[in-house]
């Protein structure tokens, strides 16, 4: 049998990083190959070369036994390669059918035939059991449905090879199981599947073969039957990994954050946080579990003053913070690790030192009568860089040139430097290497042990379950349940995340 896809020793150099170093990979028809690796290991780079998003520097790609040079997604699509991207590639204002047909439009009298596209999509969705309304607008659809549209897009183009890039990141455990089932269905029909993930459980559940990348190199290949989670983790990271967070039981004290009947709207002016109530006490970590897009972002922005609160109350240490500005919230003792550190948390063109005082630049310590004091700023920066292990040549280095993990350590350092009373950490380990994840988790636990109240928001259910003393499940802008860590069993939380009942 000829392999469906054969990648022979491809390499790809980006400025400063060798993203792929001499990697070879085969996928047979009907086979599910899991591509496993940490963030930055080179998984996305590899599949993007297969999909024609960028050319390899060296090496060869064979598809259906023929040597191919895939220079554009169009060429990949024509060959029969389809890809479901980590960030959905859907035009929000277009309908489902328009998104599916885009780039492969059928014409009627010289114009795009919208009716035929809608019919085709309806047929496809029926055939594969992927329920979706072809005429619905993408921006009105929930995330899980949007993913179905992404898959329909690939099916519409008759793909022989399906690449799924971190497809489960936005799904509940139950939705994930459904997706794995859909993948098995494709494989049965002879489609080859490349499944990128960093979730070991899913790999073991669905893959026929596992290929592990680390630092741009292929470090191993195995089968689910020959390994287990810790074995995979060790291959991925290159050393034994502690999968669980070590911490003592919490000793909660006074209530620091109290949220009452909070209502916050999203960018499209729709209610995102709907009558939400929650409280966090000093010395405990409350983790918000939920599928992304259920109001987590708006909740955090509402508390921190970055988004207008429609109604309800936010109390911090019993003081009203409902209408406080970000500056005032900060003054009340609240530290905020924002979910999108590149966008909100850092100024890439500023030095590390300036970033370390980004929200404290006008405090008396760092400015006198409106003039900035570089001495104290540098002194603080020097000590924080050491204490939080930010790997950088100098405190004058541009923050933008740091790696993802070091950027996040920089933000954490800034936010924990002044011993806040409340720490709000949104996606604190997203896109961060395992070493930094361990470090950041320890810092969060330490902040708790020093008496801070911690509100943790994470899309990684494992992170919430491992770190939080209490787990609050958010669904459709409401907290649907608050469970103690010991009661927060994975499947139960998963059902709650999907809006199901507690029992």
């Amino acid at each position, binding site marked *: 049998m000829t392999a469906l896809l054969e990648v022979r020793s491809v390499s790809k150099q*980006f400025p400063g990083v060798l993203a792929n170093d001499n990697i070879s990979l085969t996928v047979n028809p009907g086979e599910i190959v899991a591509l496993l690796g940490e963030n930055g290991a080179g998984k996305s*780079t590899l599949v*993007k070369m297969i*999909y024609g*998003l*960028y050319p390899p520097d060296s090496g060869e790609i064979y598809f259906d036994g023929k040597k191919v040079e895939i220079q*554009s*997604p*169009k060429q*990949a*699509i*024509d060959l029969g390669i389809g*890809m479901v*991207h980590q*960030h*959905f*590639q*859907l*035009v*929000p*204002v*277009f309908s489902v059918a*328009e*998104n599916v*047909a*885009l*780039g*492969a*439009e059928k*014409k009627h009298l*010289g*114009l*795009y035939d*919208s009716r035929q596209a809608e019919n085709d999509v309806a047929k496809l969705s029926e055939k594969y059991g992927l329920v979706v309304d072809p005429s619905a607008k993408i921006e009105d659809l929930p995330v899980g449905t949007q993913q179905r549209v992404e898959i329909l*897009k690939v099916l519409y183009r008759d793909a022989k090879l399906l690449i799924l890039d971190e497809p489960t990141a936005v799904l509940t455990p139950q939705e994930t199981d459904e997706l794995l089932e859909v993948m098995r269905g494709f494989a049965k029909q002879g489609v080859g599947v490349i499944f990128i993930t960093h979730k070991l459980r899913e790999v073991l559940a669905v893959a026929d073969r596992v290929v592990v990348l680390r630092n741009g190199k292929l470090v191993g290949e195995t089968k689910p039957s020959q390994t287990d989670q810790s074995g995979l983790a060790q291959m991925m990271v290159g050393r034994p990994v502690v999968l669980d967070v070590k911490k003592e039981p919490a000793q909660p004290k006074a209530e620091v954050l109290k949220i009452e009947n909070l209502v916050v709207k999203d960018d499209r002016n729709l209610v995102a946080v709907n009558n939400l109530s929650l409280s966090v006490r000093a010395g405990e970590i409350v983790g918000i579990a939920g599928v992304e897009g259920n109001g987590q972002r708006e909740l955090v922005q509402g508390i921190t003053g970055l988004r207008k609160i429609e109604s309800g109350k936010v109390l911090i240490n019993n003081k009203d913070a409902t209408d406080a500005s970000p500056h005032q919230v900060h003054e009340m003792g609240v530290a905020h690790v924002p979910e999108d550190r590149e966008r909100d948390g850092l100024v890439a063109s500023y030095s590390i030192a300036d970033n370390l005082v980004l929200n404290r630049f006008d405090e008396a310590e760092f400015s006198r009568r409106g003039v900035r004091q570089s001495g104290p700023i540098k002194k603080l920066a020097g000590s924080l860089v050491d204490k939080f292990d930010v790997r950088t040549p100098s405190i004058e280095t541009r923050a933008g040139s740091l790696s993802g993990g070091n950027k996040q350590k920089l933000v954490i350092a800034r936010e924990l430097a002044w011993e806040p009373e409340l720490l709000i950490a949104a996606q604190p380990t997203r896109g961060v290497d395992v070493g930094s994840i361990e470090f950041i988790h320890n810092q969060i636990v330490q902040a708790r042990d020093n008496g801070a109240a911690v509100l943790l928001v994470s899309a990684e259910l494992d992170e919430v379950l491992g770190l939080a003393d209490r787990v609050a499940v958010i669904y459709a802008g409401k907290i649907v349940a608050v469970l103690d860590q010991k009661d927060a069993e994975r499947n139960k939380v998963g059902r709650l995340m999907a809006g199901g009942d507690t029992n």
Partner: protein
Amino acid sequence: MSKFLQRHQKAVLSTLLVIVIAYGFYFWDSVRTTSILNFSLSYALPLILAAMVGIIGERSGVVNIGIEGQMLLSAFVAFFAAVATGSLIIGAFLGMASGLLAGAFLGIAAVKWEMDQIIAGVVINIVAAGITSFYYTPGQSLPAIVPRIEIPYLSQIPLIGQVFFNKSIFVYATLILVVVLQVMLFTSKWGLRTRAVGEYPSAADTAGINVYRTRILNVAIAGVLAGTAGAYLSLDAAGWFERGFTAGRGFLALAIMIFGAWNPFGAMAAALFFGFASGMASQLQADEVINIPQQLINMLPYVMTLIILSLAAGKVRPPGAVGQPYKKEG
């Protein structure tokens, strides 16, 4: 047809209303009504064309703040080429070609060089001003005037006949263009792809559409329309050229584009409204109904632009990726 009426109820009703009112005034005072409407159309025409330039650009994700310069340059080229060759047609074509050139510059600067689109547009404006003011020679006149083409029968209709069906080729071409663009943008493959590129370029890219090429081509082709607007201004509407000839029309056009919610029909209506307001003001001034110094009358379109832009904010949604250079992730 009934579905069309249902969906565009407001537009259809207001169009009917405008027609009824126009004829009402026509029977009251045919001379003045015809003259005001003629003025409105000739005032609106370059604005319509320029707004189409903006629409094509922004629908594909490129802000074109250099429309002013593109029009200025092509008005200049069209005029002096016509003077030099003695042919209006050659002048018009060279004017359009210079618009194409300026459009291609913007497209390449914005897409290939990832230059800030606003700065690229401002550069076009300043370079066009520099070229046209240095090479300008006063005292030239055109070899001929642009002929009116009377459309049989239709031109006999009272009011509409004189306003719409006894005009130069520029007017007919523009009106046809608006209709074609409206249809193409929303029901053709090109339109679907163009809008995808302007709304969410990475989605278009992964669907196999060449984002860079689409953007550059669209902006360059839109440049031809800017060139046509310039040629119309110097060859047809004015018949002369001077420094700073376009007087901010390129910027008014952007306001009109926003007011028209990035729709060709909407922009045309907005441009006609601008033209009508100005025509009305000059007529009232001429009749001495009102007595406002000319300087303040001249201010009117600019003030209107500011007011419209501040009212439109938040009401209309621009294409999602407008102004952002597209970069492949990496």
